[in-house]
């Protein structure tokens, strides 16, 4: 629902770090979005295309790496990956002593600049 404000924030991070290093423009911005972050990648791409107009990222593409929810079960000592946006028990043994390891990411991690 708030993909526009997220798109504005990631654009700001990208533009500011690009300008600080003296680059003229951005061709690509790569972000990691966890499945548990509550963001829809399609809506984020749509919002990004709208907010980038008139900035040095006007021609930039947005590459979204979706990170699945993964975790580790303390009971059966195994790692797991789930399709859902959350996990409440180990998909293998059903125990609830689990540690969620990925899925909450919301990061800009790389840019292609000129």
């Amino acid at each position, binding site marked *: 629902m708030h993909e526009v404000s997220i798109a504005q*924030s990631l654009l700001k*991070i990208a533009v500011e770090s690009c300008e600080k290093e003296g680059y003229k423009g951005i061709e690509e911005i790569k972000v990691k979005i966890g499945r548990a972050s509550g963001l829809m990648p399609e809506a984020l791409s749509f919002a990004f295309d709208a907010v980038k107009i008139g900035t040095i990222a006007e021609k930039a593409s947005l590459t979204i790496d979706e990170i699945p929810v993964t975790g580790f079960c303390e009971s059966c000592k195994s790692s797991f990956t789930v399709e859902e946006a959350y996990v409440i028990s180990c998909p293998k043994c059903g125990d609830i002593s689990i540690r969620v390891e990925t899925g909450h990411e919301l990061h800009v991690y790389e840019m*292609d600049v000129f």
Partner: protein
Amino acid sequence: MKVKVVSHILEANDRIAAENRNVFHESGVYVINLMSAPGAGKTSLIERTIKELSSKLKIGVIEGDIAGKDDAKRIAKLGIPVVQINTGGACHLDANMINEVIADLPLKDLNLLIIENVGNLVCPAEFKVGEDMKVMLLSIAEGDDKPLKYPLMFQESSALILNKIDLLPYTNVSIEKIKKNSISLNKKLKIFEVSCKTGEGIRKWVEWLQSLIK
């Protein structure tokens, strides 16, 4: 040319939230970020909490809504300092919106500040505003499937208040299922069952809240 930038997208928000929190702490105010779907009873819970605690604590309120001043008027009637934020469409409050209204509240005179977020079970959970604790409200008529459909808010909150328990006889809702799935998502979650209409269960909630405020 490829450049590495490892930066959290909400970093700017988190930075302002930390500034807000510093201001609140320096003034000695405990801050709650109260979240729920529209109509779950946030304003009613605030009214009940004020009635129970206003003789013991000095309370202030920030009301967040997309539009309108109705909630702030309800709170002002109780003689409590209140500021209304209208987000003009935004689905949540963010740290900057709170930062802009801090000066409008007599912080130094307050012990407790309740921030009522925009009614929405999704987005408010992601934005820190400078609170000490996130509290969520779920009215039982919303259904017992909500914890697993909207997990993030249940995971981010310290307390879950189940409101409108007076409606239980008229629904097929299993309060046990709500509790079980909520605890599965967040083992530290403290759960209260209340009816803001009848007042049932309110005392337990306010006593717990009061115990957190030095």
